C-alpha cells in the first residue's frame, strides 16, 4: 500500500474509532465519576454524558458514521529520520493526497475556509492540512495527524509566565484556562502543555504533548509529577463531563518541555475534546 493510501485509511479510521487507551480512559471516567460521587445532580448528568459518548462510539464504529460532525482540521506532524533515503517532496505529496482522499472517501465535513476574515470561502476539500516538519534520528518517517475539532481548539491558549513562576502558579494558570473553557470543548478533555521555547514553540509543544500515548507519563519524574498535579487541579474545577458539574473534567495531562530564555517561561495549553482522534502511520525507509 502506498504511503498516501495508508494515510488516507488511517484518517478515515481515526474519525470513527478511538485508540484503545483513549476508549478505555473514557470508560474509566464513567466508573470514576460513579465511584467519587454519582449522586449529585451534576454528577448524574455527567454520567449521562459519558454513557452517551460510549454509545456514540459504538454507533460510530458499527455504522461507520464519523463520531463527530466536526471531523476537524488536519494537523500533521511529520518526523523524518535523518537517514530517510527519499525526498521530503514525496512525503508531502503523499500527505496532501492522503488528506484530500480521506476527506472525500471518509465523508468528512468540509470544515476549512480559504482565508480567515473576508468571505471565508469553503475550500470544499477539508484541505489544506497544516504540516509540521521535524528531523529525528533513524531512517523512518513517522506521521501523526490530529483531526482537530475547533470546539476545543477555540479554548486553547498561550500564557507568557514569569521566569520565577512556581509549580503552583502553573497549575493555577492551566485550571484558569480550563475554567474559562467550561463546557465548550466537549469535556472530559485531553490537555497538552508545552513549556519553554518561545511563544509559538510552546504552542507547538503543547500539540506534540497531545500525541503522546494516554497513560504514559513524561519520562522525567518531576515533570511526570507536575502532570499529576495539573490533572488534580483541573479535576478540582468541578466542570465535569459536558460542563454539567462532575468530578472528571480531564482524561489526561501531558507536558513537553524545551530550553527557553532567561527572561521567560512560555506556556502553551492545547485542549482536545474527548474525541481525541489521532491517525498514526510509520513508513519505513
Amino acid at each position: 500500500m502506498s504511503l498516501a493510501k495508508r494515510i488516507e485509511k488511517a484518517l478515515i479510521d481515526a474519525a470513527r474509532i478511538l485508540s484503545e487507551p483513549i476508549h478505555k480512559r473514557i470508560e474509566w471516567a464513567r466508573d470514576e465519576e460513579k465511584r467519587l460521587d454519582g449522586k449529585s445532580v451534576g454528577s448524574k448528568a455527567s454520567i449521562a454524558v459519558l454513557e452517551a459518548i460510549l454509545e456514540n462510539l459504538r454507533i460510530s464504529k458499527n455504522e461507520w458514521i464519523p463520531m463527530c460532525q466536526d471531523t476537524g482540521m488536519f494537523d500533521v506532524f511529520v518526523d523524518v529520520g535523518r537517514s530517510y533515503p527519499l525526498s521530503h517532496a514525496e512525503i508531502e505529496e503523499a500527505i496532501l493526497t492522503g488528506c484530500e482522499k480521506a476527506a472525500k472517501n471518509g465523508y468528512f465535513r468540509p470544515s476549512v475556509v480559504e482565508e480567515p476574515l473576508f468571505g471565508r470561502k469553503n475550500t470544499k476539500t477539508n484541505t489544506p492540512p497544516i504540516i509540521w516538519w521535524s528531523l529525528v534520528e533513524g531512517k523512518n518517517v513517522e506521521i501523526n495527524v490530529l483531526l482537530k475539532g475547533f470546539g476545543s481548539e477555540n479554548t486553547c491558549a498561550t500564557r507568557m509566565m514569569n521566569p520565577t513562576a512556581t509549580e503552583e502558579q502553573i497549575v493555577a494558570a492551566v485550571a484558569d484556562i480550563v475554567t474559562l473553557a467550561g463546557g465548550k470543548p466537549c469535556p472530559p478533555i485531553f490537555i497538552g502543555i508545552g513549556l519553554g521555547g518561545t511563544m509559538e514553540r510552546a504552542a507547538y509543544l503543547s500539540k506534540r504533548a497531545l500525541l503522546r500515548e494516554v497513560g504514559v507519563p513524561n519520562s522525567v519524574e518531576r515533570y511526570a509529577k507536575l502532570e499529576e498535579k495539573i490533572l488534580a487541579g483541573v479535576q478540582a474545577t468541578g466542570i465535569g463531563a459536558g460542563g454539567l458539574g462532575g468530578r472528571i473534567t480531564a482524561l489526561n495531562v501531558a507536558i513537553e518541555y524545551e530550553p527557553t530564555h532567561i527572561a521567560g517561561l512560555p506556556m502553551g495549553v492545547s485542549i482536545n475534546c474527548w474525541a481525541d482522534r489521532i491517525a498514526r502511520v510509520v513508513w519505513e525507509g
Partner: protein
Amino acid sequence: MKNLHLPIGEEDLRSLRAYDSVSFSGTLYVGRDQVHQRLVKLLEEGKPLPVELEGQAIYYMGPSPPLPGMIMGSCGPTTSARMDPFTPQLLGKGLKVLIGKGPRSQAVHDALKKEKAVYVQAFGGCGALYAKTIVSVEKVAFEDLGPEALLRLEVKDFPVIVAIDSHGGSVF
C-alpha cells in the same frame, strides 16, 4: 426521562427544570454562526425572515455529509457561545428552545428568562448518536452556506439535558 414534542407547548416548556433529561420528537430548525448573522441582519434591515420563529426550536449544528443510504451524516451540537451575540434578538422573535453545547452569556440567561424560553444541551461530540434520531431533512434557506445552511429536521427520540430553564434555573 421526559418525552416531549417539538414545537414545544407552553405547559411543557414551563415544566422543564435545569438538569432534566428530555427526549424530543418533532420538528426543529438547524442554524449556526452564519445563519444567525444573516437572520439578525434581516431583522435589523426590517426585512422578513425566511422562516417563522414563533414557538420554534433551533439546533446549533453543521452536519458531515451523509453516507450512502442515509439522509444525514454525523450531526452533534456545536459550541453555543458563538451564537450569544445574536440570540437575544431571535428570542425576541419568539424562538422558544435553543439546542447546543456549553455555557451562555449573561445576556442570553436574562433573555431566556424574559422571553420564557429554554436552553438545552445536546451531547457534545456525539454526532453518530444524533444521526440515528433524524427522520427527515429539508433545506429551508441560505443553501449557499453548504454545511452551514438553514435546515428543518424532523427528529425522533433526540436526547438533551436542560441547561437553562425558563424560570432562571441553570446548571452553570
